């Protein structure tokens, strides 16, 4: 269909420009646009859950992360923006790597599909799982163990970022509505709506596209909006509240896993009666933890404006 071809051309073009441009700010904007165009690809493929996550992350956290990182680089090391850093490596190796990937991909493209695919077998069993949305059923029931480890990855990421940012500067004073009347108005409307939508998406995840990741990423987007506009003061780097919220998702999920091992004889095998409640409870905690972690990535990577940058340390 023409739409799909046009979409693919658009995504491919965006990727090419994104990877070849020498302007960091352009790259940031292109990267966000690339993510949004990709979300349309997911829609066309029929992966609405993925589209939702891509949009929530791409429009909110990812772009903001890059904007911030760019600014900090300019502050700390303006020479990173100079020509020497843009010198490409010898062209042979990249060409080889690209060709290697291309050949591998083409082999994959032309190879026959599985004789006995997994999808029908999974879909057949979804009614026995703890959620009717097949994707949520896979994430929180069939392959819940993966999801548990993945929350571990997020916690590892934020711990790692914290470890790098030891002794980061004091947080800036909060902005007030007088400083930014227009922005304040927007925040006043958007944030409650975002929170409501996030709750809706968390609940919806059991039946339809949605769930903890999407809701968490959306919530994190609102957090980033408030942090960036200065209406939300970041928590002190190692505030017990923040750390507890960050760790809560992993703790609750792992504890549930251990409890089910004892009570039900298998890791994250939910009780026959209340599987749905378990999933919803876990998802609710995960949503909050994921949101806190993603927003905290934003706080930490760039942290607050520094008065005397460059001289510190």
């Amino acid at each position, binding site marked *: 269909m023409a739409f799909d071809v046009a979409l693919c051309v658009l995504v491919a073009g965006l990727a090419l420009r994104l990877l070849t441009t020498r302007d960091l700010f352009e790259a940031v904007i292109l990267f966000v646009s690339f993510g949004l165009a990709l*979300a349309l690809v997911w*829609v066309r493929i029929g992966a609405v859950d993925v589209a939702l996550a891509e949009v929530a992350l791409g429009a909110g956290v990812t772009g903001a992360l890059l*904007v911030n990182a760019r600014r900090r680089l300019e502050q700390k090391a303006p020479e990173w923006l100079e020509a020497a850093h843009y010198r490409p490596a010898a062209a042979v190796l990249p060409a080889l790597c690209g060709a290697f990937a291309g050949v591998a991909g083409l082999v994959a493209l032309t190879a026959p599909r599985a004789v006995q695919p997994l999808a029908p077998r999974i879909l057949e069993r979804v009614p026995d799982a703890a959620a009717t949305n097949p994707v949520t059923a896979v994430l929180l029931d069939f392959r819940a163990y993966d999801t548990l480890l993945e929350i571990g990855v997020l916690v590892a990421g934020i711990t790692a970022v914290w470890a790098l940012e030891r002794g980061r500067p004091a947080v800036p004073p909060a902005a007030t509505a007088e400083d930014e009347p227009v922005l304040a108005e927007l925040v006043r409307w958007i944030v409650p709506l975002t929170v409501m939508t996030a709750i809706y*998406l968390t609940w919806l995840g059991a039946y339809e596209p949605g769930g903890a990741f999407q809701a968490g990423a959306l919530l994190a987007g609102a957090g980033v909006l408030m942090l960036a506009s200065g209406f939300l003061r970041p928590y002190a780097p190692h505030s017990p509240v923040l750390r507890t919220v960050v760790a809560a998702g992993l703790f609750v999920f792992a504890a549930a896993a251990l409890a089910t091992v004892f009570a039900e004889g298998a890791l994250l095998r939910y009780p026959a009666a209340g599987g749905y409640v378990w999933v919803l409870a876990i998802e609710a905690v995960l949503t909050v933890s994921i949101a806190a972690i993603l927003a905290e990535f934003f706080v930490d990577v760039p942290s607050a404006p520094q008065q005397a940058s*460059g001289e510190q340390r």
Partner: protein
Amino acid sequence: MSMALHGFALFLLLNVTAGLVRIARGPTAPDRMLAAQLFGTTGVAILLVLAEALDVRALRDVALVFALLAAVLAVAFVKRGRVSDHARRNRA
């Protein structure tokens, strides 16, 4: 009607593709921000149209999320994208 909606979605996509040229051309950062903004609004429209055309309700939720977060990048850019004291000192 489905044909028309699909056609409209394609039109919007081509429209946004053309607009993206502004990202590459710049010349200033605000110009690029604008082009991203165009992508945001049109993206919402495309999602809504596809939701109707493909009869997938969930796409409206995607559009809703899109709309809710439309301002984040611009705010981050304006409030945190500004450049360092270092650059200012060099200029002085």
